[in-house]
Structures are given as structure tokens and as C-alpha cells.
């Protein structure tokens, strides 16, 4: 009969109105600046560069292989490779980015850079409060703004970070064991050994540069 459906609808809204005072299901508002949603672990927003230790410059994992720059769908990464090298987390000398810019006014948060990075150097941040009235100053993030510590990574993505840390530690162990073995085997040939390490690192970097190979971390092992 005419009016029945309308009354039913009115009942539904009334239920929600009353419910909003008594039930949490019926008042789903999260008052953002004061309250926040529980962080979701996988959340991704913009990339950042992970560094180990305390010094962002020294501990940056990025070896400036430029894979992410090539694979980035909207082409928002800009890398200038350094001319010199510095040791990475296993102590192997590597290139590092002299300049690493991400234009987050272009970035589409697709995570492809993270997927393709063989060095676990670039990860996704969860920071979203980036609105600014300064388009260039605020939205083009340089190396210093991008660099965030591994602790930060562990805090925002604990599961992934734990995995990554375990893998890196394992690698480091392997490398150290190898180095130890090599050192024991050829303790005398110190000069020759250091030269070999250098070539290995170079070849790894070359491999990494080549787009078709080096898709996984194994590729970098000396």
C-alpha cells in the first residue's frame, strides 16, 4: 500500500540515527587529525630509500643501478650515479646515487620500483600528510628527504622488514663466511684478493645495469 515502503525506509534511517548514539557500527566516523585508523601493514604511499645504521649518506642501500628509473611507469625517478664508490652493507664497494629525486607530484604509488629493486633499497612509505602550497619545493623529494632508516621501515612494514633483514643477514653471513674462507685459503695473496673483489663488484653493477638480468638478489653476489 502507498506509504508502506516509505515508512519502512524511515524506520531504517531512524534505526541508524538512534544507532549512531549507541553502536559503533552505526557511527563509523574516525575523527582524523585526533584519531587515526589502525595502520595497515601493507599500505603504500610513496617510495623512500632505506639506509642501514645511523648515517643516511653512508648506509644508503641504493647502488644507483637505475633499474627503478627505467621501470617506473610514469617516469618520476631521476638518478645520477656517483663517480666514486663506497662500501655497502657487506663492505663491498658500490656506486651510490649522487642524486636521487622522486617527483611525488607524478608518482602513482604503484610499487613497481620496489618490485624490481634487486637491493631492497627502495620501499614504500606510509606517510601521506604531504599537502603543501609549494609545488616544487614540497613535492620533488631529493635523496635526503627520501632517505629513511631501516628502523622506520621495520616500524611501518614489520613483516616485510623482518623478511628483508633475515635475507640480508643471511647474505652477509654467506659473504663473510666466503671471505673468511678465502682469507684463510689465501692469506698471503692480500693484494690479489682485493683486486678480485673489486672486479666482482664491478661486474655485479654492470649486471644490474643490464635490464634483462639481475632480477633477483642472487645476481649481485660476488
Amino acid at each position, binding site marked *: *500500500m*502507498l506509504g508502506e515502503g516509505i515508512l519502512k*525506509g524511515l524506520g531504517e534511517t531512524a534505526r541508524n*540515527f538512534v*544507532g549512531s548514539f549507541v553502536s559503533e557500527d*552505526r557511527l*563509523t*566516523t574516525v575523527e582524523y587529525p585526533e584519531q587515526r585508523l589502525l595502520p595497515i601493514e601493507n599500505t603504500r604511499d610513496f617510495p623512500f630509500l632505506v639506509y642501514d645504521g645511523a648515517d643516511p649518506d653512508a648506509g644508503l642501500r641504493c647502488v644507483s643501478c637505475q633499474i627503478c628509473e627505467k621501470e617506473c611507469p610514469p617516469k618520476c625517478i631521476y638518478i645520477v650515479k656517483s663517480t666514486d664508490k663506497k662500501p655497502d652493507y657487506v663492505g663491498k664497494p658500490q656506486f651510490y646515487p649522487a642524486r636521487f629525486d622522486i617527483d611525488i607530484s607524478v608518482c602513482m604509488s604503484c610499487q613497481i620500483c620496489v618490485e624490481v629493486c634487486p637491493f631492497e633499497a627502495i620501499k614504500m612509505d606510509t606517510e601521506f600528510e604531504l599537502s603543501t602550497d609549494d609545488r616544487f619545493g614540497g613535492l620533488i623529494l631529493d635523496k635526503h628527504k627520501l632517505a629513511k632508516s631501516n628502523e622506520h621501515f621495520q616500524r611501518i612494514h614489520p613483516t616485510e622488514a623482518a623478511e628483508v633483514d633475515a635475507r640480508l643477514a643471511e647474505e652477509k653471513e654467506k659473504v663473510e663466511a666466503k671471505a673468511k674462507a678465502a682469507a684463510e685459503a689465501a692469506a698471503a695473496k692480500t693484494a690479489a684478493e682485493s683486486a678480485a673483489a673489486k672486479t666482482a663488484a664491478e661486474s655485479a653493477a654492470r649486471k644490474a645495469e643490464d635490464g634483462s638480468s639481475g632480477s633477483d638478489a642472487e645476481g649481485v653476489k660476488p
Partner: protein
Amino acid sequence: MNSATLDQFFVLLQHHLSALFPTVLQPWVSMILGVVGIVAVFPAIFALTTVLERKGLGRMQNRLGPNRVGPFGILQPIADAIKSLTKEDIVPRSADDVVHFLAPVVLVVAIFLGYAVLPVGRNMVLLNIDAGILLFFAVGASTELSIFMAGWSSRNKYSLLGAMRAVAQMISYEVPLLLAAVVAVMMAGSLAPTAIVQAQGGFTGIFPHWYVFTPWGFAGFALFVVAALAETNRSPFDLPEGESELVAGYFTEYSGFKFALFFLGEYLGMMSIAGYGITLFLGGWGAPFSFLTFIPSWAWFFAKLFLAIFFFIWLRGTLPRLRQDQLMNFAWKFMLPLSLLNLCVAAAWRFLGECLGSGTVAEVMRWLVCAAVLVLAYILLARTLLRRQNIRPRSYRYAD
């Protein structure tokens, strides 16, 4: 302070204040005080209503609504007012600037006039004239012209279409609105709002003699409410400003202060029509139960007003809007016959009362007869309406 003084608090205040002036000026001062009262109180309620509406809608939609400006967001309308008053006032180049300016002014002035005869409490009416209800309808009729002025002067297709719709709708619903109101006038035997309220004054047991508790009164009230919704362009009859088709209806081209005036006018119109609905059917300033009469009359009036406003908000939060032709059909093919029938039923009620005499059995008989006629008519009319529109619930088949 006893309850009687509290009840007459504002009347006495007006009296004492005007007594400070020389005798010649006293009626004028008293009048001005009344006007000031209306002009101060109702816009304040309007401001409160906007924030309550936004919060109420929010609650219906599982959210909070404005709550950051001032405590509980209560200062929100003040911020809106400051913003609106200082916002640039744009008059479109091709617009008719005089009419464009006059339209909102005429609207607000006309609607304020309607408050002159609205009794907001015992002895609290600005003009106690004989033909008060007629004044209300006359004033309501002139708001249509201002809406037309707004739509026409903007020289915008959407505005003009919105205005045409609004005027057509308001004219159509004015008829059932008037006819619904006439029932109460008939019974009270007066066009004066105060007399109508007084006619609903007494109590049977603890229950009051409000017209809404009679079959014809209830039907009249329901019809009045529906027509009032349409008359004030509230959901589900908010077609003139139907933003899904017409952007913002007749005030599309209005900005800043003038837009605020329209906004004000619209809400004042809603409150005034709600006030008359209360006066005609809900016993005006009367208390709902005999043991509650100690609460001042004006408090009852405003309590009822807020309830009515809440009802409007509730409807708005629930219902989608009708289409123009359905709206018209509804007015002419459903509302009009039903309200005419309701007139007859009211007359019958009167005569049955005289024929059957007094006594509980006679009362109940009368009640049942009148109610049955109305319910029957309602069912018949509703059925025809739905059948003509070919509306029915459906069932669905599935393919595996």
C-alpha cells in the same frame, strides 16, 4: 517566579518595556518589540536548524556532522554567515539587476510577514487579527512571485526552469494545503489562529483536544504536512532545486549575501509553515498532557516546532525525490480529492455529533465511521494512483 509568570514572561517583558515610553508611543513600541522579537528569534532558530539539520543528517548516515567550529559545531552557522556576507556578490552580465536584487528581499520580507499572525505562546501573537490564516496563505502566495523573479532575472536556463517548476509546484500544492487547513478552520469556526488554538484547548482525562486526534484532523494534518513539504520545496518534493537535473534551481546564479537570503527565506518558510501546522492541528502552544501544563506555553510551541523540523530532516535523509509529472499527478489526483473528501468527513463529524448525541458509544461510533470513510478513500485512491503508474513489487527469475 510561578508558572503563570513564566508562561507570560515575554508578554510581561514587552509590556514593562513599552511602559517606559510615553503613552502615545506605547502601542508602537510594543509593536516594534514584537517585531524585533520575531526578527531575532526565528533567524536564530534558522541558524540552529541548519547546524542541527547537518548533524541530524550526519547521524542518519552514520557520521558526526559539523563538530569542529565551536563547541559541538554550534558556531558553524556564524562562520557560514560571516563567509556569506563577505563573499563577492556576482550579478551575471545579462541579468536583470533590479529584479535580481529584489527577488530575495521580497521573499524574506513576505515570509517574515507570515510570522505576524503566528501565535508562539499564550497571548504571544503580534497581530491578533480575524483573518490570520488568510494572511498566511496570502503571504505564501506572494513568495511564488519572488521565486519567479529570481529565476527569470538570472537569465539562465536552469534558473528559469527551476523557477517554473517551483511556481507550478507551489500553486498546485497551495490548493490541498488550503483545503487541509480549512478543516481546522471549519471546526474552530474562526480564521484567527489564536481562536483555533483555543478551540483545541481542553483535556479529556490527560489527553488534549487536538484536532490531530480526530480522523478528519489526522487526515488533514497528514495532507497538510505533505502539501507543506511541497510548498517549501523540501525533500521529497525538492525538484525546483533538484541538483541532479537543474544544478541549483532558481538560485543557481546567486552568490554571497543574496544567496544567504534565499537560504534564510527557505528555512523561515519551512518554520512558518510548520508553525501553522502546529497551530491548526497540534494544539499550538498547548501542552500534550494535562499534567504538563505548568511548562510555559511558548516552550511547548518551540518544542513542537523543533519536532516538526526534525521530521522534515528525517524525511530529507530518507527519501528520493519525485518527478515533476508525478508530483503534479499526486497533487491533483490524490491530494485534492482526498482533501475535498476530508472536508465532507469533517462536516459529517459535526452532524454525526449532533445526531448521535453525546456518550462514549456515540463517540466511538462517530470515530469509526469517519475513520472508515477516510481509510477506504485512501486505499481506493492510492490503488488507482499506483495502478495508473503501473507500480508494483516484482519477483525475479534466475538462470543457472
